[in-house]
């Protein structure tokens, strides 16, 4: 398939299991450079699992994953990520025993093209709240502060693709708005994004294309604008 070679990220008939249960049941999609992709679905449909499988945090039981034309199915997480992916995982994954400063610094890395768009200073500018708590341990932050830290940390790796799994969970409306603003900013800068969020309206508004997952299968794929108008589909797959 041609797309696999041009795509930033692509999956071919991807399967994954947790023990006996077949979670991902043959998923194929591709994400072109510069595209913002949304991933929607009810609770427990496999969104997080898909992300984790793409990153080899869950072993794929079948199918292939491609990053920038390289087949990475056999590679380990760190190698895949180093090809230019930044991750904000579900549950944040802030390092509680490192200070805020260290959480950011440990991740710092120039992008795959040598670009250093996101620096320590720029992250603090984007999230001033973090600047006030630089010396605090990551574990002492409030939930929202941790979420900002996780995003900031992912940006410090200057990725080509930023994956956000429920990045706005537990954030104050102002901050949520701020994060969507940042996501829009990132999108505008040409960085690709893969966004999972419970607020489907925001996801649809901030992405070019969307995938809808149901019980581990891709049931819908299309332009976000189209989907936003398709009330029947939204009701059917998201229960709204």
């Amino acid at each position, binding site marked *: 398939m041609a797309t696999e070679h041009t795509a930033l990220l692509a999956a071919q008939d991807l399967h994954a299991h947790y023990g006996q249960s077949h979670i991902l049941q043959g998923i194929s999609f591709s994400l072109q450079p510069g595209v913002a992709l949304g991933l929607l679905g009810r609770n427990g449909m496999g969104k997080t699992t898909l992300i984790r499988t793409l990153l080899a945090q869950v072993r794929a039981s079948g199918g292939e994953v491609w990053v920038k034309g390289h087949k990475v199915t056999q590679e380990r997480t760190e190698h895949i990520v180093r090809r230019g992916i930044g991750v904000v995982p579900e549950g944040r994954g802030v390092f509680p025993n490192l200070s805020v400063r260290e959480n950011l610094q440990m991740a710092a890395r120039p992008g795959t093209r040598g670009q250093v768009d996101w620096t320590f200073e720029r992250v603090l500018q984007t999230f001033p709240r973090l600047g006030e708590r630089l010396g605090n341990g990551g574990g002492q932050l409030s939930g929202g502060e941790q979420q900002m830290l996780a995003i900031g940390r992912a940006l410090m790796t200057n990725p080509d693709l930023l994956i956000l799994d429920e990045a706005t969970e537990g954030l104050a409306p*102002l901050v949520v708005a701020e994060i969507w603003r940042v996501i829009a900013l990132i999108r505008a800068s040409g960085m690709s994004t893969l966004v999972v969020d419970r607020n489907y309206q925001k996801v649809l508004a901030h992405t070019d294309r969307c995938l809808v997952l149901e019980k581990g299968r891709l049931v819908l794929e299309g332009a976000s604008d189209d989907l936003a108008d398709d009330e029947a589909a939204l009701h059917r797959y998201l229960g709204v």
Partner: protein
Amino acid sequence: MSTLMLQAQSVSRFFGGLKAVEDVSVDLHRDELHAVIGTNGAGKSTLINLLSGELPLSAGRVSLMGEDITHWRQPKRARAGLGRSYQRNTIFTPFTVRENCRLSAQARWPRAWNWWQPASRCALSNTAAEEALQRAGLGDVAERVAGTLSHGQKRQLEIAMCLAGAPKVLLLDEPLAGMGAEETERMLALLGELKRDHAILLVEHDMDAVFRVADRITVMVNGRVIASDAPEAIRQHPEVRAAYLGDSVGAGHGH
């Protein structure tokens, strides 16, 4: 007139120099859902920790149905009817969903220390658990091991466990976080139902939801209460809009 269930008077909690909660007073009445909203790090979770007894107070007083419980430890408060959920999941990952609820129910019933009778034969906690499961919409996955649930399902279980203990006062820390649209609806319906015979304190960032169910809203910023009023008044409150709501929640933007 609704009964006053839980009252916090000028409670404070300091972490070193940080005043996480400072001079906060809240009243929780039966048949009233009291929402506490506020910026991240405002001290909402800390407030719940203070009320539930997880953290000792630096200053202030807490009373439950007129009784001073400031110096009670957490388990005793819980047995007296203070139930809470956590912002981060605290489920028993190795147990089944049902067992999670059963265990949560157990402490409240007599002879919790019984060591010869099989726990599975404790009818009281079994029914309590079953009821909580149904209410939280987890009936289908009751036999699943809790650790294998998806994030949203775990959040539901977190609430179910809180309910299983048959509390009189519910302190819910962001119960809607991580739930999908459908589950959010169900949870809001549940809250409306629970409200009738419980006093509920709801910490939540989903403003649509909060404004739909709350009877009273307290807003915290940096450890202090900046406003406490009926929802409509809060929605218009300039300080609250500036510090927390922003423009995202336009006046009257419902569903």
